[in-house]
Each structure stands twice: as structure tokens, then as C-alpha cells.
């Protein structure tokens, strides 16, 4: 009974009495008359008798009846619990927990597997149900609602149960009763069907801050080009074959694992509850946004007269709308006439840049033959430039995808890695440029000094050191039994070449400061550029060592082979090529004769050649190490997961590396809830937490690269090559740089694709526009808008 | 109820590597398990096979991770094998250690360690060794070392027994002769044309039985092509045989270093159409190859038992083999034609065999049943079980070694050599000391070191720390089925 209606009734009664006064007097007389004739006493007696009867008979009967009724009511419940009576409740810990009675709303993944989204206070479960059916609770969702359902894998939200309701009110047996309150952190959950309950508490990730939870660690590298690099790596045989044996090992292991599968005794078919995990993770990611939405729309539940606005409010509102309309009008004006021009200009600028980049890339990647080395394989600088260009080509695409992300729910977590990658590369380039500016300014300031230093180093290490070592070798070093004549010969040869080369260097010396200055200038494009240039400069200025190495290696290898075959002859055997084994063979006298003499000759000449060979081999190795260091620095500058580390420090939730569970002691929990009348089913409280990505995973590719380098240069194969004088190939650039490419897609988007992407962007904006406006506008407009969105 | 034992078969040679010793170990273990014993196998790690494995019938195989030097014989890791071995033996509650193959160091070490730990040891010798060259002299010393303190030795043939007795200077009484056997079911003779069509080598018409005068006679040779398998004899004999007997053909299965010579022979006197070389085949394909032929030619130069000729006879082939090693003991004379290891004699013998087949004098179809009655693994298992009973004292010594129980002196005298050997260190040292002037002292040193290591292990890894592993459910052997051999 509403107080207002009571008031009106009272006014009506008062008016009536004043209108008919005589009737009142009659009533008074009648009462006195009744009292005089003892009507009252009789009535009192009768009343007493009746009440006695009621007390003695009706109340017990009613009690019995209610108990029977209750029995009848609870009987089906008691038989209810299913064979696997495990109830699983996912409960957000940061859910507001007032003590009020309310309705628990969420997903019901399977009859006994519920996911709590929100508790709606002060509403009737029935209404909530209907509202959910009608989708009232999802009114004016910013983005299409269907997406929620498809990502959460459920057709609709459900009422899961009631919270803080007294036991008396009976509910659907599949519902849960939740007792929460400010006091207890863990709600106590009971369900008629469940014999045991898992309460899994989790922190809701905030989509606004791009937090999310995932089962497997976030992938910082683009995962789309394993096979691609296999193809690229094909041109160096050695890499190829060790990759092959890698693959064969994997295949063998896979076979063993297949065998292992046969060992398992019973193949366990996963139940729905077990398959639901991925879905549930998604639901967790959605939980925050959905709860916000529901809480916003709670006010719509129930039939409540819409209170009309007072005059003052209406005035205020109209004023604000006027202002807003003005703003909106201006904004539209700007957007319609000015913005497109800027956009077009910007896009054209981008396209021009893109096309030039395309041309440059074509130049860099041009190969005379498919097997030949392209420019970028030869020089580090070209490689660096190529990487930068690739990044420039990739950014717009990335940006477009990120923009498209804007007009979707915040909880769609697919594009987070893209985001991180995008900003990572931006940050890296920025970093690179900052360091580069410092370095470059330094270099430019004292270019002459640096040039002097470099030329001194060159002349000191690549000329004088070599000369001294060679001349040291020419006079029996360290008691080595070298053959004087041969040593003289070789030494003179090499010395002559070195002299020639040093004269070339001398010719080059005056130009050196300019080169240095150029390098310093180039480093305004990033510190990686001068490093690459230095590495190229090094390889250019040490060509002579390289050639020495090649020559001595050839000689040594050749002599070694001859010695081996002559040794077979010495033993009166020969290597049978057809059967690939050592056969006995009787030679002729003159064969033996010449063979033996040659054998003796070469045998005694071998140490000399070995010494020279080793000398140059070591020089070569040193240079290779230096270049490897340069390359490592480059890859550090180009790929350091800076942004990821920053995120890891700032907000670990944004780099999910999987989930983990914690089993909480349930004793305190039980103590907290033992005031509740009904005995709880056996309950286990579990915390679900998200593990942030560990550093090992962040630097995984560095480990990979280090492993590659180690496997290439410290492998027995290389040692064998060194010993037998075969040519040791430098590490294939691809394998070294795969690290840096891992940020980039295997094939870059063509010019036209980029153009399309560019043009797709504004339309996206336009779609986003009506959403942006009404946020400023008031409820009614918002409402209509919401309906538009929800219908459209 | 006969007593059952926990037996550990130790050898370097076991599956996946194919071979005679391997299958011997496997079959023997299986049959012993059928008789209610518990058997495990200890061998070294093959590639991809390290750790503990269960075979289908619950036979447990330990692939001990040791690296391999030559043809899957491990490097002599004399003492480093001891801790692992002790661990395995204790956790499996082994009481008899049975080593195989005198070329496997693992086996010898295991026997030494087992004696140190006070277990009964048996050794089975599968191979023959000369006394001439240095390698065999070394091997003999090693054998003498490990066999001078073994409880019993099993040889696969009498020749092998004589050889072992001479090499290790053993008491002949502690050497039993238990031949190999074949699984006759796997070597049934050719029965119906359908199966010949089925298996992989069926590109030629199935062998005709009975033979007409002009049917081609197929001669099968299955052996690894090494020198001591007599491949040179084969290479020399084949052209002459084919020349003398117009419609005969050869099927040669197996590979090895001498395969090239064979191929060259085939090319040199153009015989590609009459000699078919299959390369190496798996053991389960042997029967499929055999039943395509009529005569099995086995030109080996030394052979302890020669399981393959028994298999051939079981497949119903008429066997021509060289009269070397234990081969003459293996098959009755009506199944075989013996030849001296000479080219001419081999050719002549093959000629005789072919002639006999052409005249249908040989009832090859009966061979299978006869071989089945001669050799069966169950029989081998029973006889091996008797050896186990003997050494573990379940059979009285007198009964086992045939002393008359009337005077105890007779066997107390030889107690040192044969019979239930005492584990006292001093007795063992006595036995080893008799091995030679220098070798004896060296062996004693080794044994003492081994014993010290044993004590150390007892202290370092006490037995309580070692988990006893549960047994595979044992089979119970019923006494009725026991004499089912005959």
C-alpha cells in the first residue's frame, strides 16, 4: 500500500464524515443500545471460544501441513545432486560486496559450472531473468552485443542465483545461494545440487588498461615465418644440413611420443567442464566491461514510473544540449571540410614515402641469380637500411589495425601483441635515434681524431702486426723446424702484397676523416647505422687478410690431401674411390720412388705452410669475431624488447605468461561462514592468478641467436675445417638477422594494399563517430542512439 | 612346487640389434618367465634406447647408458658399472645373474660384481675362439678371469664346451651343454601358394614339390657376409655350382663387407639372372626367404651352434653345410650334407644334395616335425632351470654333479672348483690366484678393489635407500603342462 494512496483515502473519509454528520450520531446510539443489552459480552465469549478452537486445532494442523509441504518441496532437491556433484563457481574478487540481497548474474557454462559477472541488488530474480531475455540489461552497449556472445561462447547470460537471501525463500534448485558481505572476502556459496564446490576467485583484468589473461604466454614476435626462413637459409649448405638433422631429431622424437600415446591405458574423453577453460578465460577478460554495463543498466529493471523532469532540470538540460549541439556542429564542420584535406595530404605523403621505400628495397634485394647474394646479404649497412625501410612500410599497416581495434570492445585481446610490437618498434627507433644523435654529434665533433685513431689502428693491426708476425715466422720462430727457403718465399710474397696494400691505405688516409664525418652524419638516422657502416668498413679494410687466409688455406688443404694419398702410397696402399676404402696395391718402382721422395719433401715442408696458414687463420677468426660483435650490437639495438620490459615493470598484467592457481586454506573460510544455518558442502577456495611473462621468454630470441652463433662457430665441423684448411664460412646473415626480422612480417604489404588500408581508415573513423558524440549528450539521446546501435 | 628365482640376464647384445645371441636371450627369458621365474635383462644403451623398458610380455630391459666401441661391445668400464649394477640387482631382488656371450664386457663385469655381492652366477658361451692370434689370447685371459669364479657355465654345443673348458681351464663338470632352439611355429615349411604370393619376395613361382627333373632348384644362403662366415668360399663356389647344374638359382640374403666381392663375381661372370641378392633382411623375413628354396647352403668357417641351419631344416630345406665347429652335432645326417671347407668339396656336396633332391630321396616335408621334436625353447628353459636348481642347492650337489653321496670327501675335495662355491673373499682370491703367474696377481688385485668398492657402496648407498620395485605378476606353472615338451 503506497503512502500516497493512503493519504488520498484519508482525505476522502474526512470529507465524507463532514458531509453526513447525522449518520454518525445514529451509529453512536446504536452502539450504546448494544452495550445496554449485553451484545458485547456475548460477542466477547464467542470470540474467546473461537480463538481457543483456533489455537488448539488450526495452528497445529497448519504446522503439520506446512511441514508436509516443506517435505514435499525439499524431497526432489534431496535426490537432485548429480553423479559428479562438483560445482564450479568463478567469482571475481573485486566484485563489490554489500550485504544487501541481490541477484547473481553471469554465464552458465554447464549446469554446475557458473561464472559470476555481477550481483544486481534490490531486484527480483524474475525481472532480471526477463530483462536478460529481452536484452534490456545490455542496452546502449558501445559495440555490437553479438560479439560478446560469440567470444564468450554462450548464447545468453543467466541468473545464477541469489545473494544474501534468507533460507525461507525457495529458489530454483540449480541456483546458488551466495552469502557475501563486507566482512568476508570469500563468499560462501551453496547449491542444492552440488555436493562439493570449487570457488575460483580471480582478479578481473581491466580492459581499459589493456590487461588480460591468457593460457599461453603472449607472443612478442610475429609467428608467421618459420617455413619462410627455412627457404632463405637454404643457400648455405652447412646451416641447411644441421637444420636438417635438427628436423630429423624432432621427427624421431615425435615418433617416440606417438609411441608413448599407445602407453596410456584409458583415453579419457574430456567433459564439457574440462573443455570450457579457454572459454572461461575469455569470459574473465570480459568480466569487467560486462559488469560495468550491467550495473549501468540495473536501473532499467522493474516497472517503475519514469519520473518526469522538473522545470529547472529541463532548463539546464536544454542549455547544455544547446551548447553541445553547437560544439557538435562545429566539430562536424571541421570534420567534413578540413580534416579530409589533411588526411589526404598525409596519406599521399605516406604513399610517396612508401613507393620510394619500395624502389630502394627492390634495389637492395636484387639478385643477379636466385642463388647469388643480394646486396643486403653482403653489407651490414644495406641490411640495416633494409630493416628500417621494412619497418617504415609496416608501421602504417600496424597502425591501421590498431585503429580498427578502437571500434571494438576493449576486451577483445587479439590485438594486444600487435600494439606492443608497434610501440616497441617505435620506441626502439626513437631510442636508436637518440643514442645516434649523441654518438653522431660526438663523432662529427672530433671526426679528425677518430679518423686518426682508426687509421692508426688499421696500420697498426692490419699492416704492421701482420708484417711483424710474418717476419717473425721467416726466422725460425720458437724453435719450429721451418724450411728456410719456403718460409722466405712465402714471407716475401705476403710482405709484398701487404706493402702494396698499405700503400693503398695510405692513399686512402686523407679521405678517412670525410668518411668518418659521413658516418657520424649518418648516425643521425640511428646509432645502428654507424655501427653497420663500421662493420662494413672493417670488412673492406681487411680484404687483404681475407685473401691471405684464402690463399694459405688453399695451399695447406692441397698439400694435406697430397700428403695423405702419398702416405697411402708409402704404406703400399691406395684409397679405392669406388668402394671408398683402403686397398692394398703394389706400385712400380718408379712410382714408389717419386712418390716417396715427394712425400719426404712435402712432409718436411708441411710445418712451414701450417705456420703461415695458422697465422692468417687466426687473423681471419679475429675479424670474424669482431664482425660478430658488431652484428650482435646491431641486433640488440634493433630488437631489444624495450617496450615489453617497460610494461613488465609498470603493469605486469599486460604481459600475461599463463595462469596459476593457489589453493587457499579453507579453515578460516569455514570459521567465517559457520554462522550460516545450513551446513556447507565441502568447499575448496582457489585463487586464479595471471603469471606475467618471464624475462627468459622476453629475451628468448636472444638466446636463440646466441645458440645459433655458438653452434655455427664452436661446432666440431668448424674446427675440422680449420684443421684441414677448408674454408670456414662466416655465419649466414639470415640466421643472424632472423631475430631482427621477427618483428616484421615475412612479406611486406604491397603498395596497393597499403593504399586500401589507408582509405579504409577514415571510414572506420566515420563509423566510430556517432559513438563518440552522444557520450557528451544526455540520456534520452543516448538512449535512442543505443537503440539505433543495438538495432542497426 | 619348484622354486622360482629372480634372474638377471646380462649381455651387451640385445634387441634392437639383430642376432643369434639376442634372440637366444629373449626366447630363454620368455620361457623362463612362463615357468614362473622373474627375469630382467641388463644391456647397454642403443641409440634411442636408454633407460628402462618393458617388452610386451612384461620382460624388463635395462639399457644401461654406456658408450659403445666396437660392434656394440661396451668399453670395459670395470668398476664404474658396479654401482648401477648393484642398484639394479638390489631393487629387483635378483638372486641369479646369468651372463651371455664371451665377447661382452658387460657380462664379465656383471659376473665379477655379482660374485662380490654374493649372488649365484651362470655364464653362457655362444662362440668359439682359437688359441692362436693375439686377440683371442686376450679374450681367453679375460674369460679365464671372469670364469674362474663362476658357479656354472652353459655351452651351446659340445665343441663349444670343449673350447670353453680349454680356454678358461674349467672343470668339465661345471659346464653344461644346452643347445639353442628355434621357435618352430615361426619356421613352418611352405604350405599353400597363397602365402608365397602374399609376402614381399614372391616375384618367382613357388618352389615345386615334389621336384621334377627339370624344375629349377633354388639354393638359399642367409648369413652376414663376413670372412668367418665363409663368404669367400661362397664367392668361389657359386659360379662353379651354377655351371655344373644348369637349372639352379641362388638367393642370397644378408649384407656385410664381403658383399662387394659377391656382386663383382655376379657381374664378372654374367649371372644376374641366376643369383638374386636381397641385401640384409629382418629376422622375421628369414622364413619367407627360406621357403622359396630347396637347399640351404651354409659355408661358414666357424660356428658354435648354427641356429640358422636348424631354422632352414625346420622350413623343410635340405641343408648343405661345412663341417666346422659345432655344426656336425646340430642336425641328423639325413637332413644335411656335410662338406669340408674347401671349394671343390663344397661344390661336390651341393651337387650331391641337388642330385638327392632331384631323385626325391629326401623327405623334406618331414623335417619340420622332426626339428620341432628336437629343439624347443621350453626344453632349453627346463634344462637351464635344472642348472639354476643345481647351483642354488635345490638339487643336492651329489645329484647335480654326480658324486656318490656315500663319501663326502669326494665333493669336499672339489668344492673349491665346482659345486656350491663359497663366497668368502679368501676362497675367491684362491681361485683367481690360480689363473696365472702375473695374471693371477692382477686378478686378485682387481677382485680386492672390487670388494672395497662394494663395501664403500654398502656404506654410501645403504640398501634401505633403494626402492624395491614391484614384480610383474608372475605366471604360475602347472605341473601337468611341464612335461609337455615331448
Amino acid at each position, binding site marked *: 500500500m503506497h503512502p500516497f494512496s493512503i493519504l488520498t483515502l484519508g482525505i476522502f473519509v474526512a470529507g465524507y464524515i463532514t458531509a453526513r454528520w447525522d449518520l454518525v450520531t445514529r451509529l453512536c446510539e446504536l452502539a450504546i443500545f448494544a452495550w445496554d443489552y449485553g451484545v458485547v459480552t456475548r460477542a466477547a465469549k464467542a470470540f474467546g471460544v473461537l480463538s481457543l478452537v483456533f489455537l488448539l486445532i488450526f495452528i497445529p494442523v497448519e504446522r503439520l501441513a506446512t511441514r508436509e509441504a516443506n517435505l514435499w518441496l525439499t524431497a526432489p532437491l534431496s535426490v537432485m545432486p548429480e553423479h559428479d556433484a562438483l560445482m564450479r563457481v568463478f567469482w571475481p574478487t573485486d566484485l563489490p560486496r554489500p550485504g544487501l540481497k541481490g541477484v547473481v548474474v553471469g554465464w552458465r557454462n554447464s549446469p554446475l559450472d557458473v561464472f559470476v559477472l555481477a550481483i544486481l541488488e534490490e531486484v527480483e530474480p524474475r525481472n532480471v531473468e526477463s530483462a536478460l531475455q529481452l536484452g534490456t540489461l545490455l542496452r546502449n552497449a558501445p559495440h555490437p552485443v553479438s560479439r560478446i556472445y560469440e567470444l564468450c561462447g554462450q548464447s545468453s547470460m543467466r541468473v545464477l542465483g541469489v545473494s544474501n537471501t534468507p533460507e525461507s525463500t525457495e529458489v530454483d534448485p540449480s541456483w546458488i545461494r551466495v552469502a557475501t558481505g563486507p566482512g568476508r572476502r570469500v563468499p560462501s556459496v551453496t547449491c542444492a545440487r552440488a555436493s562439493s564446490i570449487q570457488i575460483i576467485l580471480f582478479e578481473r583484468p581491466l580492459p581499459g588498461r589493456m590487461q588480460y589473461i591468457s593460457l599461453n604466454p603472449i607472443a612478442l614476435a610475429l609467428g608467421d615465418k618459420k617455413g619462410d626462413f627455412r627457404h632463405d637459409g637454404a643457400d648455405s649448405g652447412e646451416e641447411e644440413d644441421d637444420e636438417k638433422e635438427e628436423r630429423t631429431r624432432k621427427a624421431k622424437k615425435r615418433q617416440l611420443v606417438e609411441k608413448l600415446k599407445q602407453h596410456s591405458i584409458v583415453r579419457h574423453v574430456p567433459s564439457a567442464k574440462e573443455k570450457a577453460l579457454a572459454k572461461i578465460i575469455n569470459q574473465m577478460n570480459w568480466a569487467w566491461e560486462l559488469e560495468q554495463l550491467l550495473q549501468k543498466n540495473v536501473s532499467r529493471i522493474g516497472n517503475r514510473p519514469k519520473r518526469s523532469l522538473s522545470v529547472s532540470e529541463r532548463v539546464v538540460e536544454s542549455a547544455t544540449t544547446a551548447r553541445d549541439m553547437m560544439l557538435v556542429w562545429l566539430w562536424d564542420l571541421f570534420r567534413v571540410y578540413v580534416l579530409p584535406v589533411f588526411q589526404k595530404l598525409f596519406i599521399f605523403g605516406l604513399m610517396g614515402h612508401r613507393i620510394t621505400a619500395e624502389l630502394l628495397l627492390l634495389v637492395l634485394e636484387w639478385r643477379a641469380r636466385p642463388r647469388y647474394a643480394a646486396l643486403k646479404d653482403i653489407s651490414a649497412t644495406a641490411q640495416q637500411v633494409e630493416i628500417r625501410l621494412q619497418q617504415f612500410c609496416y608501421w602504417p599497416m600496424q597502425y591501421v589495425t590498431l585503429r580498427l581495434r578502437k571500434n571494438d570492445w576493449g576486451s577483445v585481446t587479439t590485438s594486444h601483441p600487435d600494439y606492443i610490437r608497434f610501440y616497441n618498434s617505435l620506441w626502439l627507433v626513437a631510442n636508436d635515434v637518440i643514442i645516434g644523435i649523441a654518438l653522431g654529434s660526438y663523432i662529427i665533433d672530433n671526426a679528425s681524431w677518430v679518423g686518426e685513431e682508426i687509421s692508426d689502428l688499421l696500420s697498426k693491426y692490419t699492416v704492421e702486426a701482420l708484417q711483424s708476425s710474418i717476419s717473425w715466422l721467416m726466422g725460425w720462430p720458437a724453435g719450429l723446424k721451418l724450411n728456410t*727457403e719456403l718460409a722466405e718465399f712465402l714471407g716475401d710474397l705476403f710482405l709484398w702484397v701487404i706493402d702494396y696494400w698499405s700503400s693503398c691505405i695510405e692513399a686512402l688516409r686523407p679521405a678517412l676523416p670525410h668518411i668518418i664525418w659521413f658516418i657520424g652524419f649518418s648516425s643521425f638516422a640511428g646509432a645502428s647505422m654507424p655501427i653497420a657502416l663500421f662493420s662494413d668498413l672493417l670488412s673492406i679494410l681487411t680484404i687483404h687478410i681475407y685473401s691471405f687466409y684464402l690463399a694459405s688455406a688453399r695451399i695447406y688443404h692441397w698439400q694435406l690431401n697430397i700428403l695423405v694419398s702419398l702416405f697411402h702410397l708409402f704404406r703400399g696402399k691406395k684409397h679405392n674411390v669406388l668402394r671408398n676404402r683402403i686397398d692394398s696395391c703394389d706400385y712400380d718402382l718408379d712410382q714408389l720412388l717419386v712418390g716417396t721422395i715427394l712425400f719426404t719433401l712435402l712432409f718436411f715442408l708441411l710445418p712451414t705452410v701450417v705456420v703461415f696458414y695458422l697465422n692468417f687463420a687466426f687473423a681471419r677468426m679475429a675479424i670474424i669475431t669482431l664482425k660478430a660483435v658488431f652484428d650482435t650490437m646491431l641486433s640488440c639495438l634493433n630488437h631489444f624488447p624495450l617496450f615489453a620490459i617497460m610494461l613488465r615493470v609498470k603493469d605486469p598484467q599486460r604481459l600475461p605468461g599463463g595462469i596459476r592457481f593457489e589453493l587457499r586454506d579453507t579453515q578460516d573460510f569455514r570459521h567465517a561462514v559457520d554462522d550460516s544455518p545450513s551446513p556447507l558442502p565441502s568447499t575448496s577456495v582457489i585463487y586464479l592468478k595471471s603469471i606475467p611473462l618471464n624475462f627468459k621468454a622476453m629475451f628468448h630470441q636472444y638466446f636463440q641467436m646466441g645458440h645459433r652463433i655458438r653452434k655455427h662457430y664452436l661446432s666440431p665441423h668448424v674446427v675440422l675445417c680449420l684443421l684441414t684448411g677448408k674454408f670456414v664460412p662466416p655465419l649466414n646473415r639470415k640466421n643472424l638477422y632472423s631475430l631482427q626480422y621477427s618483428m616484421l612480417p615475412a612479406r611486406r604489404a604491397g603498395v596497393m594494399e597499403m593504399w586500401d588500408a589507408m582509405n579504409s581508415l577514415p571510414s572506420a573513423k566515420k563509423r566510430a563517430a556517432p559513438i563518440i558524440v552522444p557520450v557528451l549528450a544526455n540520456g534520452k539521446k543516448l538512449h535512442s542512439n543505443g537503440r539505433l546501435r543495438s538495432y542497426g | 612346487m619348484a622354486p622360482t628365482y629372480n634372474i638377471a640376464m646380462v649381455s651387451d647384445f640385445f634387441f634392437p640389434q639383430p642376432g643369434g645371441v639376442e634372440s637366444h636371450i629373449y626366447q630363454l627369458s620368455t620361457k623362463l618367465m612362463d615357468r614362473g621365474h622373474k627375469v630382467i635383462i641388463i644391456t647397454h644403451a642403443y641409440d634411442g634406447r636408454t633407460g628402462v623398458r618393458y617388452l610386451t610380455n612384461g620382460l624388463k630391459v635395462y639399457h644401461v647408458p654406456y658408450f659403445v666401441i666396437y660392434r656394440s661391445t661396451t668399453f670395459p668400464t670395470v668398476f664404474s658399472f658396479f654401482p648401477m649394477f648393484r642398484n639394479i640387482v638390489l631393487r629387483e631382488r635378483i638372486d641369479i645373474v646369468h651372463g651371455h656371450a664371451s665377447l661382452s664386457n658387460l657380462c664379465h663385469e656383471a659376473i665379477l660384481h655379482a660374485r662380490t655381492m654374493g649372488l649365484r652366477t651362470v655364464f653362457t658361451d655362444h662362440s668359439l675362439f682359437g688359441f692362436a692370434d693375439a686377440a683371442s689370447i686376450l679374450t681367453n685371459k679375460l674369460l679365464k678371469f671372469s670364469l674362474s669364479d663362476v658357479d656354472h657355465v652353459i655351452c651351446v654345443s659340445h665343441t663349444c664346451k670343449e673350447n670353453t673348458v680349454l680356454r678358461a*681351464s674349467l672343470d668339465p663338470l661345471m659346464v653344461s651343454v644346452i643347445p639353442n632352439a628355434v621357435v618352430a611355429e615361426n619356421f613352418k615349411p611352405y604350405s599353400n601358394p597363397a602365402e608365397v604370393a602374399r609376402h614381399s619376395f614372391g616375384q618367382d613361382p613357388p618352389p615345386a614339390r615334389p621336384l621334377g627333373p627339370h624344375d629349377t632348384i633354388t639354393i638359399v644362403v642367409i648369413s652376414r657376409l663376413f670372412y668367418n662366415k665363409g663368404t669367400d668360399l661362397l664367392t668361389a663356389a657359386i659360379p662353379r655350382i651354377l655351371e655344373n647344374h644348369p637349372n639352379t638359382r641362388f638367393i642370397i640374403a644378408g649384407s656385410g663387407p664381403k658383399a662387394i666381392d659377391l656382386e663383382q663375381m655376379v657381374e664378372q661372370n654374367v649371372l644376374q639372372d641366376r643369383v638374386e641378392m636381397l641385401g640384409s633382411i629382418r629376422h622375421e623375413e628369414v622364413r619367407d626367404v627360406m621357403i622359396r628354396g630347396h637347399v640351404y647352403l651354409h659355408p661358414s668357417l666357424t660356428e658354435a651352434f648354427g641356429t640358422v641351419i636348424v631354422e632352414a631344416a625346420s622350413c623343410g630345406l635340405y641343408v648343405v653345410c661345412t663341417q666346422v665347429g659345432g655344426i656336425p652335432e646340430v642336425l641328423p645326417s639325413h637332413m644335411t650334407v656335410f662338406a669340408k671347407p674347401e671349394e671343390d668339396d663344397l661344390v661336390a656336396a651341393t651337387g650331391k644334395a641337388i642330385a638327392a633332391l632331384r631323385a626325391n630321396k629326401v623327405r623334406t616335408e618331414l623335417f619340420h616335425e622332426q626339428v620341432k621334436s628336437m629343439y624347443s625353447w621350453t626344453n632349453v628353459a627346463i634344462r637351464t*632351470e635344472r642348472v639354476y636348481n643345481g647351483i642354488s642347492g635345490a*638339487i643336492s650337489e651329489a645329484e647335480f654333479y654326480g658324486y656318490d653321496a656315500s663319501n663326502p670327501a669326494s665333493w669336499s675335495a672339489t668344492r673349491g672348483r665346482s659345486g656350491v662355491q663359497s663366497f668368502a673373499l679368501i676362497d675367491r682370491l684362491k681361485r683367481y690366484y690360480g689363473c696365472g703367474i702375473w695374471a693371477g696377481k692382477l686378478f686378485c688385485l682387481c677382485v680386492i678393489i672390487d670388494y672395497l668398492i662394494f663395501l664403500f657402496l654398502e656404506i654410501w648407498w645403504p640398501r634401505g635407500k633403494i626402492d624395491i620395485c614391484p614384480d610383474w605378476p608372475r605366471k604360475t606353472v602347472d605341473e601337468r603342462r*611341464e612335461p609337455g*615338451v615331448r
Partner: protein
Amino acid sequence: MAPPSGLQQSAITPDASNSLENGAQPQHHHPVLVRSATVPVNLKSSRPDPSHLAPEDAFVSASPPRRPGLFDNGNGSGNELRPRRMRRKEASRSRSRRRKRFQKLLWVKQSYPDNYTDQATFLENLQRNPRVQPYDFWPLVADSTIILQHVCSVIIFIVCFVGIFQERVSPVSVVGWGSFATFIGWLLWDWWVGQESQDGPVDGTPRAGAMGTYRDFRPPRRQDSDVGLQALSPSGVNTANPSALPSAASSSTNLIQEPQTQRHAPSASNNGNATSLLTPGHVHSRSVSSIHSVSSQTSAAARAGSGEACGSSGYRGAPASRWDRAKLRLGTIKSAILIYFTLLGLSPILKSLTRSTSSDSIWAMSFWLLAINIFFFDYKGSWDGAHKFPVASLSTNAALMASTVLASRLPSTGQVFSLTLFSIEVFGLFPVFRVYARQRSWRYHVLLTVLLVLGAGCGVGMVLGGEDEHLPWKNGLIGMVVGCLISALALGGCSWWLIGLQKYKNEIYGPWDPARPIIISRRHWDDE
């Protein structure tokens, strides 16, 4: 293990035998398997032949001695001491009541325990020292002269080197005399081979052996060698048996194939010449070609035929042979000149080769190399054919290397050249000549030996004699005498010692030894 059915029906202790076979009932009484039946009695006295080993020989060394009482209570006391055969007969009779006698077979189901050791058959075919033939003194001495020859030639070489090194001998004279001797030797050789080709049916290409030029005729070598040996079989008596047997056999095959080869000789011969220029490994092509020529031939014929075909120049006798000899002389001279100039070219490099190496290491090295040469030298020198050049590659190479190393110590190019050339003559050619001389006639051999011993002794004497120029010949004479004495002593003493050692020889042969396959047409397709 089941007993034979006959035993099963026999009423005498069937269950006993049963329990014996499957030792499943240990508590059951075992049939009296008495020690006498199993334990070998020691009958060393009554053993039929010494080479027949009884089981107790195996362990009597290591096992504690048995008490005699152990055997007295076998089956009856006395019969242990009777000779073995009687006892076995008796035992078998007494046993034949109970069971079949033991057979050394695996396929019969024996009624004996597995570890039963039968007296009669255990180790019955074990033989000791079967194929040892006792040496007697003089042939041994005669054979050991070969070693003496080689050692002496090495000593002579060393002496020459020392002479050159100390510049007491002029290198030119050394190499001159050496070359002269070689030339004489070659002429002698040529003459002998000429004679040989006259009286033998074959003169294939005898003097090919002189210097490496027989290379052109390697393919026929084997066939011709066989035939050659057949030719001079009277003189080839003391060649070792193994070489004799195959050669005889295959020569017989030659005679079998004679007509065919005669017939298709021309075609096959030009085949042979064509293919013989190829690198090794052309056997296949050759055989195939010959088979093309005679398509109807079986393999053996083809093999022989191919051999004949290529060597058939020898079969067509005199008319071809003269021309051949001329060509061979030419080839010989050619290769001689080749070697000569090679050495001439290399010697300046050799001179400075090991200058940086210290002399001691060079001496040590050359010593070891020469030792290798002496130890690995092919003393058998089996003479199979004029073209089989008894060159043991390793020893020759070692000697040549030693000489090269030594030569590199010499100051002047001429010395280096001469020493190297001399070493070639001594180590490369001289052994051939020696072997041939020995084959030729015993007299030459002895003569050569004496000369060598004298020369070596003299040289050593002169070298050790020191610098004193007055009467160097006295030292030489002393050296000769001492050398003769030492060599005689060594020959006699060593052979006597060797004979003395024979009685320690103890080889055991048995069925377990890997049999030596006797293959007539051995290695027809190997090593090429």
C-alpha cells in the same frame, strides 16, 4: 628334456630317468651317476697318443689334486687302472643295460645330464702342433743367408753415406760404381731371361722386370706368372707350398683352356692391350670384352681366356718375343732416364730440406726408417714369374725415405743426387737381382752373399778405422775378417737357437678353430 621312447617303455627306473631329464623333483633319488662315469680319471700313462688331451689336462694345473681314493670307489675299484678302451667297453656294457651310450650330438635326447662329460668323446679330436715340421740345421742357415744379404746391403749403403758425408769417398765414384754394377746386373738379367724364354714354352715379357716397365703388362701378370712357374717348376722346388698349390691348379686350367685361347687370341689380345692401359679396376671391362669375343664361354673359361688373351703375346712364341724385348729395353731405358732427371731436378730442394732440423733427429729418424726396412723386407722373395717384382712397398719406401733424409744432410747437390741414386740402386733394384740370382742357381747366391759380407765388413772397418790415411786397407782387412766371423756366428747361433726353441712350441688345434678355406681360384677379382 624327454627321454627316448624306448627308454620310456623300459621298466627300469622310468621315473628315475624322468627326474633326471627335467630336474624338477630334486628330492627324488637320482640314478647312480657315479664319479667314474663323469669325472675324468687321470690316465696320463695310459693315454693312446700324446696329442689326445683328456679333460683333466684342462684344469689339473689349477685345481687341487684329487685323492686317489676318489676314484677307488667308482663302480668297482680295479677297473680304473685298466687301459681306457677296456674300461669304456666294460662301462658301456654295464651301462647298456640302463641307457644308450652317450653320443656327442645335440639333436638326440640323451639320457645323461647336461653337464655329463664322456671319457671317450670329450676332446677326442684335439690336436697339438699338427702342422709343425722340425727344422734341421743347414737349410735353416741357407735360408737365413737371405737376411744376411739384406743387412749387408743396408750396411754398405750406410758406409757409403758415411764415406760421402766425411768426404773420404767421392760421391761420383760411388754412384758410378753403383750404376756400373747395376748395368752389369741388368745385362746379366737380360741374358738369363733370354735363356729362360728359350727353354720355357712361355717367354712372355721376361725382362719387363728389369725396371718398372712391366707395368704395361700387369693384367696378364698372374696368368703368365703361373705358367712361368710351371715352366721352371724344376728350379722352383723350394718355393713355399701355399704359393705352389694355386699356381699349379690354375696352370692346369690354362692347359684346359689352351685351344680356345689360341683361337680367339688376336681379338682378345688387342682387347687386352687396349684395356691394359687403363687404370686399375678394369677387370670387369676386360672380362666382359673377352666374353663378347667368345660369347659361348662359361665363366671359368672366360676368366682364363681373358688372362690368356692379354698375356697371349707370350704364347705366340719367338717371332713376337724379339720385338717385345726390344720394346722392353726401350721402356726400361726410358724410365731410367725419367728417374735420373727427376732426381736431378729434386736434389737441390732436397739439399736444403732439413737444414733447420737438428742432425740428431735426422740420425734417429733414418735409423728407425732403416730398421723398418730391415724388418718389413719381403724375405720370402717367392719367385713367381719374371714380372712379379718382389717389392715390399713399405720397406722400400722406408729405405728410400731414409736415404732422402740422409741425403738432405749433405752439403752439395751432387752428393745429394748421387746418394739418392745409389740408394735407389741398392734398395730398389738390387733386391730383385738378389732374388733372381737365388732362383737362378745356388752358386750365384752363395757367391753374392760372400761378396756382400766381405764388402760390408771392409767398409765398416774402413769407416771405423778413422782418418789415418796410411794403410786404410789394413782396417778394411780386419773389418772383413771380423765381419765374416760375426756373420758366421750369427747364422750358426741364431739357427741353432731357433731349433732349440722348437720344443717349447705348443699349438692347440681343434674343431673350434676357424677353418682355413681352400679356394683354388683365389683372389681372381680382388685388389683391382
